[in-house]
């Protein structure tokens, strides 16, 4: 899929550095969320302009959150390059993020579907709530997976839910049963994606070679970290918190075998989630019209891509 999310004409030419900043921001992103929107929107046969608007919306919101997130976390790198709050300034990073969110509202309100505007605003509030809560637990190495799930449901899953539901809303399909199932499926996909992303930090299925232990080094215990710590002693958890490389992590949890065993039970836990997702897709299949039934087959492949990180699901 070739997607061009934004054009320089989308933003005022007279604002210094803004277009340059956005070029940097959108460069290198996989646009996964936009592709998910495209997958749903094209199956529902939405007009190309509507599809583009929705894709642009989700990418704007996601990238605005990255801009703010990096500043809040004081992260120095994003996609292997200097974070934009460092390259430009913290002030520009905040304003550019705010500007993207404002742009989303302008573009969506021109589309004329008030429910879509309302739902999008709701999603942005969820996202911000999640960010706020995540910041409040930085440095907490005794946080539980359940507690993190609540944050991820706001921060990550809200976007996935939007990707699945927004094209239906744009099509003015408000079937309650369909939307409930999409919410549930989106929640599971968001959770799977977040957990898989957190596994990358421990170099598990890290096929793209992302930098590892970034969360731990920023004093943030991610979902797999919390799962690892669930039955460790206080001393072991403190040792894990001080780890600078994977060998130190393995030592803290009782050896590489113990780590692998934990990984297997984490995968097992998520397989149950995938089983629930598959079950919900069957229910969704019963609710969808003949034209949209193709969606199910496409949706079935998503856990492979999102959790198992398969290149060709």
């Amino acid at each position, binding site marked *: 899929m070739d997607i061009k999310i934004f054009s320089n004409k989308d933003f005022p030419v007279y604002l210094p550095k803004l277009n340059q900043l956005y070029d940097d921001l959108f460069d290198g992103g996989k646009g996964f969320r936009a592709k998910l929107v495209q997958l749903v929107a094209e199956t529902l046969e939405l007009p190309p302009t509507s599809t583009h608007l929705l894709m642009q919306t989700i990418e704007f919101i996601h990238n605005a959150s990255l801009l703010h997130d990096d500043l809040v976390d004081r992260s120095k790198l994003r996609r292997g390059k200097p974070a934009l709050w460092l390259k430009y300034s913290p002030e520009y990073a905040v304003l550019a993020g705010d500007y993207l969110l404002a742009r989303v509202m302008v573009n969506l309100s021109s589309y004329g579907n008030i429910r879509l505007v309302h739902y999008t605003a709701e999603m942005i509030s969820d996202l911000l709530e999640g960010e706020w809560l995540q910041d409040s637990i930085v440095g*907490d190495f005794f946080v539980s997976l359940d507690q993190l799930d609540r*944050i991820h449901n706001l921060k990550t899953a809200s976007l996935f839910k939007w990707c699945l539901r927004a094209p239906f809303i744009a099509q003015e399909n408000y079937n309650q049963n369909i939307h409930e199932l999409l919410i549930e499926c989106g929640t599971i996909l968001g959770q799977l994606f977040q957990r898989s992303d957190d596994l990358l930090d421990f170099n598990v299925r890290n096929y793209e070679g992302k930098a590892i232990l970034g969360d731990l080094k920023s004093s943030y215990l991610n979902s797999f970290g919390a799962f690892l710590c669930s039955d460790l002693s206080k001393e072991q958890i403190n040792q894990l918190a001080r780890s600078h490389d994977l060998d130190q992590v393995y030592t803290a949890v009782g050896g590489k075998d113990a780590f692998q065993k934990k990984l297997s039970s984490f995968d097992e836990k998520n397989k149950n989630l995938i089983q629930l997702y598959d*079950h919900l897709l069957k229910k969704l299949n019963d609710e969808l019209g003949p034209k949209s039934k193709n969606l199910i087959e496409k949706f079935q492949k998503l856990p492979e891509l999102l959790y198992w990180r398969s290149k060709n699901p």
Partner: protein
Amino acid sequence: MSSLVTLSKSSPLYKDYLLGTFSNEKRALPIATLNVNKNNETVTFNILDKQNIVKPNFIQFLFQTLKIKKWLLVLFPMLIVLSKNIAFGAVTDPISLWLSSFGILFLFISANLRNDFVDHYWGVDRIFDHRGSRAIQSGWVTAVQVRTLSRFFLVLAILFSVPILIAYPSAFYVVTVSGFLILFSQFTSKNSVYYQLGNEISYFFLIGPLLSTGYQLSMGAPFDYEVIMIGILWGWLVLFVHFLSTLINIMPCSQAGFKNTITMLGFDKSRRFLAFWWTLYVVLYFFYHLFFAGSYWAWYFSLVLLLLTPRIVLKFKSVKSPLGSDLVRLNEIGKRFFYLVILVWLIESLWVFL
């Protein structure tokens, strides 16, 4: 062998699965819920063969299902009231004393079981993963069995209390007020007893002044103001622990739309409110002992509590997240304080018999 079934509230099978009456050989365990507490609630059940459900041993099963740990909430104030009346030689009717002791305990067990049933029925136990006995959620018993058990204990409680009401009409007034409050709690909201503002007040009176006064009257002892103070002091302390556990759940409580003291105050004000609530408890404790017990109890034990107070107040101040381990730790400290007060009060009550 397990399989999944998703049902919405409008489905005719929904109640059968939720209550566990859909099959004699299988159990339906809720694993995912959407729109909890709303008309469009949808629940996904994991259907398991009854024989595949892992049950604990019988003692543990009883301990957990009947929530024996919670019996302390009624047994302790009963013990305080009893020891006071024995010390004053006010117990005139041992038979009625035994009847009322069992009657109150059975009523409490019945209320707890009903609470578990109501929580399950309205989805509260699906919002709070660790609330209640978890006996229904684990598949050890069905919701309908819990409801039957609750009714059984209620009948027992009534049978035990009727002779007392005949013998001591003054206790009738207390039971009437209590009955009114219980009915208010059950019918004013569909949620759990614990998660509404009005019900918190009812809970305070039921577990505090009404319990202590009713118990005293039912053992043939006359009414006095000390028993009211014992009730207030106990209700205040129990509510402190209750508010703490609600604070831990402020996020899901708020998201589910529950309106109670903690969600109305919000995270920051609730922390200050609870620090104030505890400090005021220490003051109340001091004055109660000053007026009704020896002044040395007032000074010594209040001093112990006072010395500990800065620790919990500072902890309330330092907690910065409504999620995370800090709040869990705060709850543990609060519970430790709760047990400490019980220990101190117990020593004081039994001291007169030494």
